[in-house]
C-alpha cells in the first residue's frame, strides 16, 4: 500500500502537533527558546517530508503512500489519506514555507511568541491534513480547522483593523463551507441510495452517477465554497483586508498555501465529482477568471499600500490558475498547478519583502518610500527577483506557469486567453511602478536614509525562494514530470465522464430515475 513501508503521510501531517506539545511545555518568557524550538520542528518537518518527494513514483496516476483505517465504521467514516501528482507539490510547498514563516517572524512578532508559534504549527497540520485527505469528512474537518489558527493569526497579531479583517475572513470562508458540508451529506445520501453503502470515501464517490439536475446544485455549493477561498472575483474582498492586517507570516501562509486550497479543491473535489455540471459552468468560471486577472491587476495599479497591491495581484494570479484548470488540457492544468507553486513562491517572497520594510519603517505606504535601493542594495536585488517572477519574465518560474496556462487556454478558450494575456502588460505596469516609487527615485526622506540592509537571518529567509525562482524557471521538467500521470488521469476521467453524461442526455435519460437505473454503467468508468 505504501512504497516506504511506514505511515509517512501521517508522520508528516501530525509531526507539527508534536512540536505544539513541546512548545506548550516551554516557559512563555523564554522567547528565543520558543522561536528556536519552533524553527527546529519546522525544519525537521520539512526534512521528513522530503522522502515523499524522492520516493514518489512519476508514472503512477493514482494515490501513493496510501493509509487507511476505519474511523466510525457504521457511518462509513475512515481515516484515509494519500498523495498524488496534484497534491504532492502543494504539500511540499507547505512544509517548505513554514520554516520560512517562523524565520521571518523572529523579530517581527514580539508579543505572545509562544501562542504565535503554536498557531503556526497547528496551521501547518491543518493544511497538510486537508491536502492529503481522501475522505470527505476528514477533509472537511481539516478544512475548517485551518480557519481557527488563521483567524487567530490575523485577529491577535494583526494590524490596527485586525478584528474586522479576521471576522470578515472567517465569516466569508465559513459561509462558503456550510454549503459544501450540505452537499457532502447529500452526496453521502445519494451514494447510499444508489449502492447501499455508507461511505465518505472520495474515490468511491468519484464513481457515483449524479443526476444532472442534482449535480448542478451540488456543484454550485462546492464551487462557491472553493471560489471564496481562491478567491475569485467577485468573492475576493476578504483577501485584501486579511492580507493587509495579517502579520507577515500570516500573509505568506495565506497567499502561499491557503489560497491554493481553493484551486486544489476544484481539482480534487468539485471537478471530478461533478464533471457534467463543471462543463456547463466552464464559461462562467473562465469569464470570472479573466475578469479576476484584469480587475485584480487594475485595482492593484492604484493601491497606495504595498501590501494591498500585492494582495490584489494575488487575485490576478489566481485568476490565471483558474483559467488554466478550466482549459481542460494538459498545458492548462499543469500550468495551473505550476502557477500555484509559483504564486506561493513569488507572492510569498513579496509579502516577506514588504514585511521586512514594514518592520524597519512601520509603514507600508508607497509614498513614504523612494530611493531605497540606494541604502538597501541586497534588499533591492531580492525585491527585483520577486518582481520578475511575479510579472513572469522568461527564465523565472512565473513565465513557465503563465505560458503553459495561456497555451492551454488558447487551445480551448482562445478569446479568453487573449484577454488574459493582456494581464501580462498590466502586471508589469503595477509591479514596476511600485518598484520604481519604492526603490528608485531620489532618496529624499530622512527616515529612509538610515535604513539598514538585510541581516543574515533575512537573507537566509529569502534566499531559498530566490533560488527556486530560477531553478523552476529553467528546469521545470523535474516538477512537471511528477504531475504528468495524475494530470493526464484527471483529464481523461473528466472527458470520459462528460462524454458519458452527454450520451445519457442524448438517449433521453436525463431524468433522475433513469440515470440511477443505469448504475451498472458506472463501474465501467474506472
Amino acid at each position: 500500500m505504501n512504497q516506504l513501508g511506514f505511515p509517512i503521510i501521517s508522520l508528516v501531517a501530525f509531526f507539527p502537533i508534536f512540536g505544539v506539545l513541546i512548545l506548550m511545555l516551554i516557559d512563555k518568557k523564554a522567547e528565543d527558546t520558543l522561536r528556536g524550538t519552533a524553527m527546529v520542528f519546522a525544519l525537521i518537518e520539512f526534512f521528513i517530508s522530503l522522502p515523499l518527494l524522492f520516493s514518489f513514483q512519476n508514472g503512477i496516476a493514482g494515490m501513493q503512500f496510501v493509509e487507511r483505517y476505519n474511523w466510525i465504521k457504521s457511518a462509513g467514516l475512515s481515516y484515509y489519506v494519500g498523495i498524488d501528482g496534484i497534491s504532492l507539490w502543494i504539500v511540499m510547498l507547505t512544509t517548505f514555507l513554514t520554516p520560512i514563516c517562523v524565520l521571518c517572524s523572529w523579530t517581527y512578532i514580539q508579543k505572545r511568541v509562544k501562542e504565535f508559534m503554536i498557531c503556526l504549527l497547528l496551521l501547518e497540520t491543518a493544511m497538510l491534513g486537508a491536502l492529503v485527505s481522501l475522505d470527505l469528512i476528514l477533509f472537511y474537518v481539516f478544512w475548517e480547522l485551518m480557519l481557527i489558527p488563521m483567524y487567530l493569526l490575523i485577529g491577535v497579531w494583526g494590524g490596527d483593523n485586525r478584528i474586522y479583517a479576521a471576522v470578515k475572513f472567517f465569516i466569508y470562508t465559513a459561509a462558503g463551507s456550510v454549503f459544501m458540508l450540505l452537499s457532502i451529506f447529500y452526496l453521502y445520501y445519494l451514494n447510499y441510495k444508489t449502492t447501499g453503502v455508507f461511505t465518505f470515501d472520495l474515490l468511491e464517490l468519484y464513481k457515483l452517477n449524479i443526476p444532472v439536475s442534482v449535480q448542478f446544485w451540488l456543484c454550485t455549493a462546492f464551487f462557491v465554497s472553493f471560489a471564496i477561498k481562491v478567491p475569485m472575483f467577485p468573492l475576493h474582498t476578504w483577501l485584501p483586508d486579511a492580507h493587509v492586517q495579517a502579520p507577515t507570516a500570516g500573509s505568506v501562509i495565506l497567499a502561499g498555501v491557503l489560497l491554493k486550497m481553493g484551486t486544489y479543491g476544484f481539482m480534487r473535489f468539485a471537478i471530478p465529482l461533478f464533471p457534467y455540471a463543471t462543463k456547463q459552468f466552464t464559461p462562467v468560471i473562465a469569464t470570472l477568471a479573466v475578469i479576476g486577472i484584469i480587475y485584480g491587476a487594475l485595482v492593484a495599479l492604484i493601491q497606495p499600500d504595498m501590501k494591498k497591491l500585492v494582495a490584489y495581484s494575488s487575485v490576478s494570479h489566481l485568476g490565471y490558475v483558474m483559467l488554466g484548470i478550466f482549459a481542460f488540457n494538459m498545458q492548462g492544468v499543469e500550468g495551473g498547478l505550476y502557477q500555484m507553486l509559483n504564486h506561493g513562491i513569488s507572492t510569498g517572497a513579496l509579502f516577506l519583502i514588504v514585511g521586512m520594510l514594514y518592520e524597519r519603517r512601520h509603514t507600508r505606504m508607497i509614498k513614504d518610500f523612494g530611493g531605497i535601493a540606494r541604502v538597501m542594495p541586497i534588499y533591492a536585488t531580492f525585491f527585483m527577483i520577486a518582481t520578475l517572477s511575479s510579472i513572469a519574465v522568461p527564465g523565472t518560474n512565473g513565465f513557465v506557469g503563465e505560458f503553459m496556462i495561456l497555451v492551454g487556454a488558447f487551445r480551448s478558450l482562445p478569446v479568453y486567453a487573449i484577454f488574459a494575456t493582456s494581464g501580462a502588460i498590466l502586471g508589469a505596469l503595477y509591479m514596476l511602478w511600485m518598484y520604481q516609487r519604492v526603490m528608485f527615485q531620489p532618496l529624499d526622506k530622512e527616515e529612509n536614509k538610515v535604513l539598514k540592509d538585510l541581516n543574515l537571518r533575512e537573507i537566509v529567509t529569502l534566499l531559498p525562494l530566490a533560488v527556486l525562482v530560477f531553478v523552476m524557471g529553467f528546469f521545470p521538467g523535474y516538477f512537471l514530470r511528477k504531475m504528468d500521470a495524475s494530470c493526464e488521469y484527471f483529464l481523461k476521467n473528466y472527458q470520459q465522464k462528460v462524454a458519458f453524461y452527454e450520451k445519457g442526455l442524448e438517449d433521453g435519460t436525463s431524468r433522475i430515475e433513469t440515470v440511477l437505473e443505469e448504475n451498472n454503467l458506472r463501474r465501467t468508468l474506472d
Partner: protein
Amino acid sequence: MFDYIWLVPVFPAIGVLINGLLGRRIEAVSKHLIHWIACGMIALSFTVTCVIFYQLLQLPGDQRFYQVTCLDWIQSGVLQTYIAYQIDPLSMMMAMFVIGIGFLIHIYSIGYMWEDEGRYYRFFVYLNLFMFSMINLILANNYLLMFLGWEGVGLCSYLLIGFWFDDEANAIAGKKAFITNRVGDFAFLIGMFLLFTGLGEHGVWSLQFSEVFTHVHYLSQSQATMICLLFFIGCTAKSAQIPLYVWLPDAMAGPTPVSALIHAATMVTSGVYMISRSNVLFSMSPFAMGVVATVGALTAIFAASIGLVQNDIKKVLAYSTVSQLGYMFLGLGVGAFAAGMFHVLTHAFFKALLFLGSGAVIHSMHHAYHKVHCHDDPQDMRNMGGLKAKTPITFWTFLIATLAISGIPGFSGFFSKDEILWQAWSSPQGSWILWLIGAVAAGMTAFYMFRLVFMTFFNECRAGEACEHIHESPPSMTGPLCVLAFLAAVGGYLGVPHALGGSNLFHQFLEPVMGLGDGKLLHDATQAASHGVEHAAQAAGHLMHAAAGHVAEAAGHAAEGAEHGGESMFMEYLLMVVSVALACFGILIAYIFYIRKREIPAALAEKYSFIHRLLLNKWYVDELYDLVIISPLRGFAYFLWRGVDVGVVDYIVNGVARVVGWGSSVVRYIQSGYVQSYAVSVVFGTVVLLAYYFLKAL
C-alpha cells in the same frame, strides 16, 4: 561539430554569477578585477563564436545549418520546447557582430563608468546579463527561447536605463521602456499561440524555426497574415517603430555605453533579425509585408523630422536610430531581407561609433564642468562647439561615422542604405512613394547629422570657463572608437552591389537562409495564393527547397539580374546619384545654417514657430498617449477600486452582515431575561394553540 555552442551564452552567465554574487566584495578589493571578469567572459564568448564562424565557413553553403539541443525546457503533453541553439549564416553573422561590438563596448565602459563608486560591478553585471540574453535571442532555434532573450534584453534595458535611478526621470524612462516592450511582447506571445493553433494539428509543438518553416504552408493566408502582423507589433516595440517607438528617445537616460550597445547597435535591431529569421513566414503574407514596409518608411521620415530640431546630442542620435531602423523595416517589407540585415550590420558599426563618440564628448564636457563646478547640461549641443581641436580622435572617428550614416559613397552606410532604396523602388513590393520617402529621409539624416557635427565640433567653444578643461578621453574609450571607425569605413565592402562591380558577398553568405526572400518567394506565394491553397503549399515547399540553400542558384540570379540589361542598371545608377545628391544638399544646408549664417535657424524657428514647437515636442505623441491611454486607464482602475470593490462588492458583503446584525438586534428583545415576559409568552402561546384546535374541532 558545434556541440560546444552552449559555451557562447554560458560565459556571460558565469560573469553575471561571479560579479552578481560577489561583486561588492570584489569591488572592495580591486575594481580592476570586476572588469577583467566581465570583459574576459565576453572575450571568451567571442573567441568561441569566431571558431564556430570559421568552422561554418569551411562548410559548403548548403550544409551551413546545425542545431544543438542543450536542455529540455517547458514540456507538457504535446507541448515540447527545448533550450536549443541553431548555427546558420544568419545567426552566426548576428552573433559575430553583436558579441564583437559588445566586447568593444565593455572595454569602453571601463573608462566611462570608472568613477561610478559602489555601482561599478552592478553595471557590468547588467551588461553581461544583456549579452547572455542577446546571445540567446540570436542563437535560439525556436521562438520560445528567442522570446526568453527578447524579454531578457528588455529587462536589461530597463535596468540599465534606470541605472542612475536617483533621478526620477531615469527611473520613469526605464519603466516606460519595459512597459512599452511588454505591449509588443503581448503581441509576440499571441503570435506564438496562433502558431500553435495553426500548426499544432500537424504536429508542430516545438516552435522550432526549422519545423515551423517546413510546415508553414499548412497555415491559411489569413492565419499567416495575423501571425506576421502580431510578430511585427512585437518588433515595433523592440525596434522602436511607429506606434511603439516612444520609449527609445527616453531611453537615452541610461549611461552612454548602454545607449550604444543596447539602444543602437544590438537590441533594437532584434526586431529586424526576427523578421529576417521568419522570412518564410512573412513571405506568405504580402499584406503583412506591405504593412512592414509602410510602417518602416513612415517611421524613417517621421523620426528624422524630429531629429532636425533636437538640441540634446543623444536625443538626436536616438531619433536617428529610430529613423534608421525604419529603413531596415522598409527593406524587409519590400522583400529585401538580406539588404535589411546588411543595414543592421553597417548601422551597428556607425551608430555604435556615433554613440560612443557622443559619450566621449559628454564625458569630456562633464569633466570640464565638474572642474569648474558648473551645473550646465553636458549633453546640450548649445553648450558645446569647437571640440575639434580639443578632442581630435573623437572628432575624426565621429566624422567617419557621420559620413557613413549620411550615405556618402565609399563609406559603409552608402552601400546598405542605397541597396534598400533601390529595392524599395524596384522590387515587386516596392513603389516610387516608398523610395521617395526613403530618399527624403536620407537627405534629412545628412542634415541633422552634420548639424550635430557642426554644433559640437566646429565654431567657438560655448562652455564658458570650462572650455579650457575639455580634453580627450582615456585610451580605453578612444581604442574602441578607432576600431569601430575602421569598421564603419570599410564594413560596406562586404556587400558591394553588382551594379558597382562587386560580388555582394554578404548576400551570398545569407542566401541559404534568405533564399526565399528578396522578392522571389513573395512573388511565388502571392501568385500561388490566388490559385488556391494547394498551389500555395507547393510554392512554399518550393521555397523551402530554396531555403536549403543553393549558392549556385543565387549566382544564377545574379547573372539573370545582369541580363536584365542596361535599363534597370541605368535606373539604379540614377537613383543612387539622386540620393547622394539629396544627402549632399542636406550637408550643404547644415553648413550654411550652422557655420556660415548662424542666425538663420533662429529666424526660421520664429517664423514657423508652430512647426518648430511641434517638432521640438516630438509631435506631442507622448502627451497624446497619456491623454488617450494612460490617464483613462488609471481613472478606470480607480473607479474599479473605489466604485466596484469598495462601493459595490464590499457594500453588499457588509450590508448582509448589517442586515443580519439588525435582525438579531430586533429578535434579541424576545430574550429579555425576565421570567414574567417568558411566562406571558407561554400563556399567550397556549391560548393560541388551544384556540387553533378549538376552531379546528368546530
